[in-house]
């Protein structure tokens, strides 16, 4: 794919860049990126999601656009729009695969090359927020993404964990990664925090409870909230539906809305 030299950087029109990170896999990074984007959209913001998980790209399906393809324009790649009104734009390797089950079996250098292109060659246009969804770990994708984004002064990173010690253990390492790379930590989210049985309302802490909140306290970073396990949220992601608009009474909604509000409060003109 040709590297375009745009006169103006493709990220010049992006107000705020934020990364969603976790040392741990399967804690809900893509879920948080998706729901945050949907909530910010309801608040009138234009949002983009850059999915740099090259081996396991989840974002296309979460917006029901997994069949879409990417087109080129003069300034680079045109992102895929999740809605008619173009308020959420997406870029993911998922859109570049010939078949959805094709495995991307690449070593680091090839991954790094595509990530550089993803950061510089997507014609995002004017965005209030660009959310970068990442794979678990502290390796090639993370190093390359942070390096490529550095000139664009990202706002910072949201770290997602589940409550149990095994997850928190990995997220502690991610905090170190942020410190070493000079990435500000906007806060920690404790996901899959408790499950309320829809039949009898008994709450069971399937993946334990409190570990994310304790980690935030221990590390001296903001705690953005606990999001409970919510089968309606899982179903919504499976179907690529807009959970924020369609299920405002569901158990995960209040926490997710609160997270978005904190991001908005943190980036409003009054705050500095």
């Amino acid at each position, binding site marked *: 794919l040709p590297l375009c030299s745009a006169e103006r950087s493709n990220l010049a029109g992006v107000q705020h860049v934020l990364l969603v990170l976790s*040392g*741990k*896999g*399967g*804690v809900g990074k*893509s879920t948080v990126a998706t729901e945050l984007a949907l909530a910010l959209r309801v608040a009138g913001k234009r949002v983009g999601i850059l999915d740099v998980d090259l*081996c*396991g790209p*989840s974002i296309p*399906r979460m917006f029901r656009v997994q069949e879409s393809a990417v087109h080129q324009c003069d300034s680079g790649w045109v992102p895929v729009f999740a809605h008619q009104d173009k308020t959420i734009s997406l870029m993911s390797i998922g859109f570049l695969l010939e078949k*959805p*089950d*094709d*495995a*991307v*079996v*690449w*070593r*680091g*250098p*090839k991954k*790094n*090359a595509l990530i550089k292109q993803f950061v510089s060659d997507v014609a995002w246009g004017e965005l209030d927020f660009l959310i970068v969804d990442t*794979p*678990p*770990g*502290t*390796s*090639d994708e*993370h*190093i390359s993404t942070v390096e490529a984004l550095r000139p664009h002064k990202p706002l910072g990173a949201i770290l997602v964990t*589940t409550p*149990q*010690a*095994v997850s928190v*253990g*990995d997220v*502690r*390492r*991610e*905090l*170190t*990664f942020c410190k*070493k790379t000079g990435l500000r930590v906007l806060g920690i989210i404790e996901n899959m925090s408790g*499950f309320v*049985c829809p*039949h*009898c309302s*008994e709450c*069971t*802490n*399937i*993946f*334990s409870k409190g570990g994310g909140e304790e980690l935030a306290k221990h590390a001296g970073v903001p705690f953005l909230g606990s999001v409970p*396990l919510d*089968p309606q949220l*899982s*179903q919504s*992601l*499976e179907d690529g539906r807009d959970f924020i608009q369609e299920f405002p009474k569901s158990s995960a909604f209040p926490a997710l809305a609160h997270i978005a509000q904190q991001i908005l409060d943190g980036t409003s003109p009054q705050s500095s």
Partner: protein
Amino acid sequence: DCPGTGSAQAGSATACQGCPNQRLCAAGAAPDPAEAAELRARLRSVKHTVLVLSGKGGVGKSTFSALLARGLAARDDKQVALLDIDICGPSVPRMMGLEGEQVHQSGSGWSPVYVEENLGVMSVGFLLSSPDDAVIWRGPKKNGLIKQFLRDVDWGEVDYLIIDTPPGTSDEHLSIVQYLSAAHVDGAVIITTPQEVSLQDVRKEINFCRKVKLPIIGVVENMSGFICPKCKNESQIFPPTTGGAEKMCQNLNISLLGKVPLDPQIGKSCDKGQSFLAEVPESPATSSYRSIIQRIQEYCDLQHSQEEKII
């Protein structure tokens, strides 16, 4: 045309001339004959090797690897080794109750850390001095450590070598398959959860296995339903909207080894470094795990042991 960065010709095919990646592809290639011989010698004492894979993170690979190792080691006459090649997120030490342990060197190489006399473990976790230490390495450095784990760890005579992996289809996975090509791998156990968001990644992992000719022992569907301890009703927290692992296995002609329900005690035991199988023997999840472990053991027993293989 590009032979593929994972192929044996990566970096050396005619099409590679002039490719900016050429040098790097060639550097990541399969071990040279001397290295291959070294690895083969070290792994000669290993009878059965099982890789635990998933395209998706957080589905329970490490949990399963730990329980598989413990389950196999329940027989005193079997020697089991658990190797954790998740370099960035090593979960195995905690799950095996070995947090804070360090690796010791002897004349014959690195000593694994022993949980029981017949169950030894190796992980990058044992090389870190603090729980906050992050391993911020690019691919080539990770590959180097994985090679060292295979070459320098003195496992001794081992009946089962279980290898826990990070999610994905990248450096760690290519490297372990390439380095193990000097030895015999019985196959891979693939872990998933029921929802399509997981399955879509797992299908890629299955394609990876087929590409590198790694036999698939079967698939384990984890987090398969939750029974409320109070009212006993079942909830599908991770709904199998596209038929779950069962349908995927049917479509791809792969064995479904079993389904394991969610049980809060699983996470608790992992956090405490205890064996869930021993702590909660009456849980339905325990019976599922035991039956799956049994099937894997039977599969391995059908394979030729390493000594019998003509090299």
